[in-house]
C-alpha cells in the first residue's frame, strides 16, 4: 500500500507540474475551447452550468438506481442524454451518436470516459431493437 500511495503522490506531483506549465498555454488560446451543439428541445434536464460540472454525478447516481432498483425512464438516464445530444458521427459512418458531443470536452479536459465500452453511444433510431 505504501508503494501505491507513493505512486499516486508521484502522479499527483507530475500532474501539478503539468498543470502549472500547460494552464497558461491554454489561457493564451492555443487549445481552442470546445463548442457544443445545442441538444434537442428548449433546455437540458438541469441548468447548463450544473450539468457541465455534475453530469457524471447525476449519471452515476442514476446508474445505481437503475441497475439495483429497476428505476428506468428517470430524469438523468444516459439513454436520454444520447437521445438529445446525438449528432451525425463521422467515426461511426455518419450514424447519430453522442460521441462528438462528449468527446469535445473530454478531449479538451483529458478525461477518459468509461461509458461506451458497454453502452451504445448510438441514438435509438440508429440501433435496431425489438423493444424500446
Amino acid at each position, binding site marked *: 500500500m505504501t508503494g501505491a500511495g507513493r505512486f499516486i503522490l508521484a502522479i499527483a506531483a507530475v500532474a501539478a507540474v503539468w498543470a502549472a506549465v500547460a494552464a497558461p498555454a491554454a489561457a493564451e488560446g492555443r487549445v481552442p475551447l470546445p463548442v457544443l451543439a445545442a441538444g434537442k428541445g428548449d433546455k437540458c434536464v438541469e441548468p447548463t452550468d*450544473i450539468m457541465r*460540472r455534475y453530469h457524471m454525478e447525476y449519471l452515476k447516481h442514476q446508474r445505481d438506481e437503475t441497475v439495483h432498483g429497476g428505476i428506468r*425512464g428517470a430524469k438523468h438516464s444516459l439513454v436520454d442524454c444520447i437521445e438529445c445530444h446525438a449528432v451525425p458521427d463521422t467515426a461511426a459512418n455518419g450514424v447519430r451518436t453522442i460521441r462528438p458531443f462528449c468527446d469535445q470536452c473530454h478531449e479538451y479536459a483529458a478525461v477518459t470516459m468509461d461509458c461506451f465500452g*458497454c*453502452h*451504445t453511444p448510438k441514438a435509438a433510431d440508429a*440501433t435496431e*431493437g425489438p*423493444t424500446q
Partner: protein
Amino acid sequence: MTETREPRSHDAVDRVRRRVLAAAATFAGAALAPGVRLISPAPAEAATGPVTDKVRWGILIDTNRCDDCDVCVEACKTENGWHGHGRPRTDPQWIRKVTLHDRQTGATHDLPLMCVHCQYPPCEDVCPTGASFRRADGIVLVDKHTCIGCRYCMMACPYKARSFVHEDVTDQKSYMPRGKGTVESCTMCVHRVDSGRIPACVEACGGTDGKGAMVFGDLNDPESDISREAGRHMVTRIRADLGLDPGVLYRGI
C-alpha cells in the same frame, strides 16, 4: 456524491454546489455523506421502480413440452444482442439447450438452461466487489460498473450460467449494455420485466414457433399462473441438493 468533490475557491462554483446540495438534500430528505448512496424516492417522471421483495420473479419450464427447438435461445440472442464470433469456447451463451440422456433407461430429454436466479446465489457470495447481486425482486444481475472481471462467480456458479465477455462488443442494445472484460448472464430480461413485459425466451416459447413450455410470473403471488402451475404438479430444482432455491423451476426432468 457531490459532496465528495473538494470545494473550489471560485464563488460561482460554490453557488452551484450549494444549489445542487440543497436540491439533493431536499429531494432525499437526508444529508449526503461521502460514500453513502442517495436513497431517494423515484422521481415523478420515472417510468418504473423501485423494485421490492413483494414479488419474486420466476420461470417454470415444462420439459415434457420441450424438444430440440431453440426459439428461446434465438429470441434471447436477438433481444439482448449477444451474437458470437464463431469461437464457441469464448462466445457468450446466456441460455442454452441441453440434451439429457439417462444412462440406465436410455430416455432422452431436452431443456433450456440459463441463470436460475437463486434466492441464495453463490455468485453473489463470492463476488469480491459486490457486482454480482440479487435484486429485491429475485433477479440476479451483474453490475458491470463494479465488475472487475475476476471470474470467481463463474467458478462458483453450479449451473455454468455465466459468460465472460472475451472481446470488444459493439452495437449493443441501448437497454442491454455489454462490454469486454466483465461477466454477464441471463438477466431474466430485466428491462422488459421492469416495464411489465415477460422475458423474450418465454414470449418466444409461447409464440407460434415455440412449444408453450415456459411460464413466467411472480412466485410470491399464489394466484399467479406460475404459482398455480407449480402447485399443480411437483417441480424440480436443478441441483436442489445445494439448497440455493432457484427461481427457475422445471417439471419433467
